[in-house]
């Protein structure tokens, strides 16, 4: 069964990509947040700049924080954003 994931972006990640979300098909072997980020980094210049240094990014899978090793499992939404700066 083809899996897909809705990826949503915030703050400068959103601005630099020029989109606030996209649906990404997950090929076999894409199992973790880190795998998705690698997939995004391989898309070319604009994406590579942003996703080749995942240490600058934070991730939430179905609205809970995750790290590169977190399995995607049956999640439907992955949010990618810079460290938070509210308050």
């Amino acid at each position, binding site marked *: 069964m083809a899996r897909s994931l809705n990826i949503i972006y*915030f703050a400068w990640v959103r601005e630099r990509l020029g989109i606030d979300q996209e649906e990404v098909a997950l090929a076999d072997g894409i199992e973790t947040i880190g795998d998705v980020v690698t997939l995004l980094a391989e898309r070319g210049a604009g994406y590579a700049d942003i996703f080749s240094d995942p240490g600058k990014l934070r991730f939430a899978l179905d609205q809970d924080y995750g790290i590169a090793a977190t399995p995607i499992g049956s999640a439907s*939404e992955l949010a990618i*954003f810079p460290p*938070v700066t*509210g308050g």
Partner: protein
Amino acid sequence: MIRIAVGPEDFDIAAETRRVAGRGGGAIASFIGQVRDDGNLASLELEHYPAMTGKALTAIAEQALSDWPLHAVTIIHRVGKLVVGDNIVLVLTGSDHREAAMESCSFVMDKLKTVAPFWKKETRADGAAKWIEERQSDIEAAGKWKN
């Protein structure tokens, strides 16, 4: 009692204080964060992740209620465009004990700064815009709590 509110609306400190006081206890601590004038700030744009913000703030409030003897925790955070002097955030905690109220209020702010999905973008008087970066001091402040 937990009260969480996120939106563009300003808050009413007197009404929010009465609400917390109404839960009893006699000790009410609060923190208000406002847009600070650091010389040439024109405005601040506050973005958030609507599907996650309420969940993240509720989790912080629940942690505070489980770690301190509290009657009430209120967290209100504004989003959208704000100018110097505008309110950004209000945290109120109510307890029988002043230490519990004050410590938990500090805990909620420290956690909020590092885990609640808000982002601030500054626009300067000359039109230059910049996303604010995380501060090491905020990470250290959040790290001092065991939870």
